[in-house]
């Protein structure tokens, strides 16, 4: 890699349209209504881009939608109801998954191996759909140290990084995977290696 200086929001007269993408479902917000996470999407948009939120979900628009909806609904009641129920179930499922994600923790544990040396254990990254092997490789090149995926005593995959890099790891994880909330990362220390 030679240059890192040309990505999107340059100062010169760039003609590229800067599109806002939904932080929940990744689509342009005007398409959130077609996904099952609309309520979450709306919350996000209202918080991050209230202008766009007003534009998309202002009262008049909603009224229009309701009007067209009720028109569309009239003829096929049964089928439509079933479809709605299905969408609803799907939404609930995604909601549950999201909640599970929000509740799962990433743990960074420094484990002292002897007086001078320690290793850093990272668990739970897979809860956030992160490829552990790739992450381990990233850590290794980022911190210039050994890093590998190991099964812990409960048979769950974890990343073990050689050396005490827990603080740096904390920052690096936040930077690299914005979908991991800071509150969900736990930094701990373990004096004796348990085995």
């Amino acid at each position, binding site marked *: 890699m*030679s*240059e890192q200086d*040309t990505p999107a929001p340059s100062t010169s007269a760039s003609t*590229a349209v*800067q*599109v806002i993408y939904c932080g929940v479902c990744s*689509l342009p917000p005007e398409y959130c209504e*077609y996904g099952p996470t609309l309520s979450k999407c709306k919350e996000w948009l209202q918080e991050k881009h209230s202008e766009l939120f007003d534009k998309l979900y202002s009262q008049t628009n909603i009224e229009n939608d309701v009007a067209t909806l009720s028109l569309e609904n009239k003829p096929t009641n049964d089928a439509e109801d079933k479809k709605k129920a299905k969408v609803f179930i799907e939404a609930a499922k995604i909601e549950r998954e999201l909640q599970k994600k929000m509740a799962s923790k990433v743990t960074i544990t420094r484990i002292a191996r002897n007086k001078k040396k320690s290793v850093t254990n990272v668990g739970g990254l897979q809860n956030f759909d992160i490829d552990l092997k790739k992450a381990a490789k990233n850590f290794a090149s980022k911190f210039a140290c050994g890093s590998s995926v190991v099964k812990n005593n409960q048979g769950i995959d974890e990343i073990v990084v050689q050396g005490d890099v827990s603080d740096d790891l904390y920052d690096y994880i936040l930077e690299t995977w914005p979908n991991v909330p800071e509150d969900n990362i736990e930094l701990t220390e373990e004096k004796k290696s348990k085995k």
Partner: protein
Amino acid sequence: MFKKFNIKEDIATRSLVKSSVQRNIRSKILEQYNRLEPVIDEVLPKKSSLILVKCHEHINLLTVNNEILFFQHFDGPYYPTLRLLHKYPHAFPRVQVDKGATKRILSGANIMCPGLTSKGARLEEALPANTIVGVFAEGKEHALAIGLTKMSTDDIKNINKDIGVENIHYLNDPLWKSSIES
């Protein structure tokens, strides 16, 4: 095209494109999309490293700074990704579908002629068959799919049945969800 695509598993090779080859690709893309001319240096900066990612099923991705810009099947035409089209909506031919077709496209369906000829739809440019188009939706600002016309826009209007535009890449398909990690 991307219904079963999984970038994590499907990457076969990844290579830096030599500058001579890069020039070829650039001119091929410009030949296809002459309206990209004014912004091509922004899209494919001359100094940037263009990376060719070869995937299974003969799909090639062109990426710059880990962003997928174009894709290609065998050595066929280059298709822009939706994210690129969102940035430069005017650089590519466009069609507009009515509201009713929107949902079906988002679940991967091809676009039937009536969805392109009804009241909310628009076919402003005369396009031949096999044109790569951005598919826009009634009442929406941004494109929702990249398509390939199966017949000319004249035929779409006159015949007005069967598939008018093949759905190649759409919002939330596996390609949309893919990101290239280094």
